[in-house]
């Protein structure tokens, strides 16, 4: 059956009798020094729903892109109908009946749903598009999938759920019978998720093959016939229908090597420096990404947010910083509600922000280190009557670079001349310079070398000792466990749980994946 240990590779298809409709055999893919997929087997039976799950960075999207021909494997083969093939690109995949729906939908908002359906494969006669034929085919496909679509509405006037449905129908229209869906429920509201899962079941019953990526255990349990679990680029488990349950999946995803927590009993946290009430944030498309979130941060404590990518943590961090406007709710910084204020006002009130996008937001790569160090509303403290004091700018810069132990040439060098780890040190050094009331750090050690990670962690601990309230967003569970006094978990834009220092990876992971907290389970038992 299946093996739960990561050491021996689990058998993909024990019976081996039915050729897979689509699959992989020993697929390996590297990007530079990063190995995204390592020796992966995958066996998707025709007429089934096969889920591929794993946490951030497990290699799921890369594998899907390989199956669709967008990437070529460095080793191993893609299997179609049980035989190895060389996919030359998406056109080739479509010709073999394989279609991919990516997270970024390729529905054109300015066109109608019907126009989107046939775009690029229009039914024509004498150069003229046969709209009646298109409509007929569209209605038939929709009916087979259990959907009802108003084909004449403009795509921009429909919900993302409907756009996604049309994108799926478009693939079916082009003859795809294998549908690969990358995190399809990431953009859907709960009711729409149910609708989508029903559609997938219907398509499966009609003989189509579905492969979908998800990290939401409830969905996977509800609809998948088979599950493949990826962890750190490897396939660590293949589960059959009757073996699929939330706990087992969570355990496979998180793994069971517990790192010991570096226990630093900090001092008692002080008064509340940041109070968030009922915060709701939408993204640029109007989708709700943060849904009624509320929490307090006290001086001298580090509070972590754990979430799988795409569950609202980026939007929450941006909303706290002031980069993203919030629809409703309050953000109280030292008592005053700053939810309507811009970044400048919040920074002046003592908030600092480390952006997850170092190259575009954390730094101005083309400008000098000095320019990067002084670019804050605090410019007034190193200038007089609007004139920059070169001397004070220099000393502020040296102070920042020294405190973060940055390796650099001169302060006039462009920030792009530094290594990634050093660049991030400049960012953290700048944001922890002087005493801040609140530090919002989003993925502060992303792309940083080991030594840099240790140093940045130390800078965060230092901020905590200085009485700053630190809000830490990180995809590295061990980093959260190491640095945080408590961990809040986001799932689907909502706070689903709070865990104290010492929580295990399994406990955090379960909440992140949409499972119930252990205490809740015990309560209901």
């Amino acid at each position: 059956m299946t093996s739960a240990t990561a050491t021996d590779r689990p058998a993909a298809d024990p019976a081996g009798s039915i050729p897979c409709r689509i699959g992989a055999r020993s697929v390996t893919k590297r990007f530079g020094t990063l190995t995204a997929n390592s020796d992966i087997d995958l066996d998707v039976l025709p007429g089934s729903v096969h889920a591929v799950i794993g946490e951030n960075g497990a290699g799921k999207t890369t594998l899907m892109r390989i199956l669709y021909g967008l990437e070529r494997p460095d080793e191993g083969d893609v299997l179609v109908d049980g035989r190895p093939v060389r996919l030359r690109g998406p056109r080739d995949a479509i010709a073999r009946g394989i279609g991919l729906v990516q997270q970024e939908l390729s529905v054109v908002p300015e066109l109608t749903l019907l126009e989107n359906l046939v775009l690029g494969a229009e039914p024509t006669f004498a150069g003229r598009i046969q709209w009646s034929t298109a409509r007929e085919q569209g209605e038939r496909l929709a009916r087979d999938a259990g959907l009802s679509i108003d084909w004449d509405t403009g795509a921009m006037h429909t919900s993302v759920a409907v756009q996604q449905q049309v994108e799926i129908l478009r693939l079916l229209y082009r003859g795809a019978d294998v549908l690969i869906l990358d995190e399809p429920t990431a953009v859907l509201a709960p009711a729409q998720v149910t609708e989508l899962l029903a559609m997938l079941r219907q398509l499966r019953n009609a003989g189509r093959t579905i492969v979908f990526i998800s990290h939401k255990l409830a969905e996977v349990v509800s609809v998948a016939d088979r599950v493949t679990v990826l962890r750190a680029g490897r396939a660590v488990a293949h589960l059959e229908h009757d073996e699929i349950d939330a706990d087992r999946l969570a355990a496979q995803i998180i793994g069971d090597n517990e790192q010991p927590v570096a226990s630093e009993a900090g001092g008692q946290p002080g008064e509340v420096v940041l109070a968030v009430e009922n915060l709701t944030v939408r993204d640029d498309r109007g989708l709700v990404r943060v849904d009624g979130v509320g929490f307090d941060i006290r001086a001298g404590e580090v509070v972590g947010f754990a979430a799988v990518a795409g569950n609202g943590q980026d939007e929450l961090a941006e909303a706290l910083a002031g980069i993203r406007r919030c629809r409703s709710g309050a953000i109280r910084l030292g008592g005053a509600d700053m939810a309507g204020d811009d970044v400048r006002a919040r920074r002046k009130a003592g908030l600092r922000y480390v952006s997850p996008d170092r190259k575009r937001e954390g730094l101005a790569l083309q400008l000098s280190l000095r320019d990067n160090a002084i670019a804050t509303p605090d410019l007034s403290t190193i200038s007089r009557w609007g004139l920059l004091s070169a001397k004070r700018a220099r000393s502020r810069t040296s102070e920042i670079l020294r405190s973060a132990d940055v390796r650099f040439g001169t302060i006039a060098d462009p920030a792009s001349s530094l290594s990634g780890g050093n660049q991030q040190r400049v960012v953290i050094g700048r944001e922890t310079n002087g005493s801040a009331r609140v530090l919002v750090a989003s993925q502060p050690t992303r792309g940083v070398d080991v030594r840099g990670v240790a140093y940045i962690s130390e800078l965060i601990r230092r901020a905590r000792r200085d009485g700053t309230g630190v809000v830490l967003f990180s995809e590295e569970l061990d980093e959260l466990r190491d640095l945080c006094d408590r961990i809040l978990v986001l799932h689907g834009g909502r706070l689903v749980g709070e865990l104290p220092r010492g929580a295990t990876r399994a406990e955090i992971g379960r909440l992140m994946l949409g499972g119930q907290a252990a205490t809740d389970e015990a309560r209901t038992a």
Partner: protein
Amino acid sequence: MTTIVESRRRLRLPSLGSAGSVLAPVVVALLVGAVVVAVTGNDPVSIYRTLAREAFGGADRVNATLAAATPLLFTGLAAAFAYRAGIFTVGVEGSFVAGGLATAAIGSHMDGVVPALGIAALLVVATFVGLVVAVLPAVLRAYARVDEVVTTLMFNFIASGLASWSVQAFFQERGQANSATAMVADAVRLPELAPPGQTNVGLLVALAAVAVYWWWTRSTTLGFELTTVGSAPRFAVAQGLRTRLVVLVALLGAGAIGGLAGGVHTLGIVHRFTAGFSAGFGFTGIAIALLARFNPVGIVAAAILFGALNSAGTTAQLFIDLPIQIIDVLQGTVMVFAVAQFALPRLRKRQAVPVATT
């Protein structure tokens, strides 16, 4: 549909290495000019030699070149100032015309004033009027994110239409040819630096403006913020810099400098406002700003280059059969290729949407 133009708005200047990217458009322009010239049976080499001689061969020639470069120094500076902030205005032409008209209209009534005071007052007015032309595009851009390229382009036409109308309605000098104001009073004419050459005090004002620009961007907090907004806009927002103020200052500043340019042109060279007041100085300024890449020395050099082309082209007509339109060809080509990237288009298949690898 505004989203299409917005995504183009980031003016990506090619990074060939500074000397290369300055020379390349000029070289291409010279080649294109040579082709046009050759097609009509003239010899490009001798034509270019004549132009060079007419531009720089002798003190009086240099004088003419510098006089022609003066308005371009201003308009190039105005454009560079805004582009440095990532604000892509093409409206300097409109500010130039408005400033020039205001100066002429008022200056013709200023007989007997103290020269220094009169000139100063007129230039202040010109600067202000130039700024006013940019107000609506500036506000629209800063507060409603309306694309400044199209609004400033439209305001060029609006400003020149209003200017022509007001000349005919209010300021027309009787007895003159159509559309001309009276000459400005002698008292407020800008003194010439080396008579009988036309180069005047305005050149010094222009050079001073460039110097002030250089100093301002390096030494003031707002100047620093302006450069940062242009170089890394998302960084500027995330760091809480005064982005809205920068946008306003960029557009209004470019308008102000353009207006000043028009005032100087009236008081220094033409001494009145007529139809055809501006020979596309605003647009040439764009080419200068693009070539010079915000660099003050580059602005001066490029302005002199284009000034040389203008003045040489005018006088060369006396000796050789060279229509001045060739100058437009050269300038336009420089403008086009100053923004083009010279990497040969590689014929690789276009990739599909790149996705973050996980």
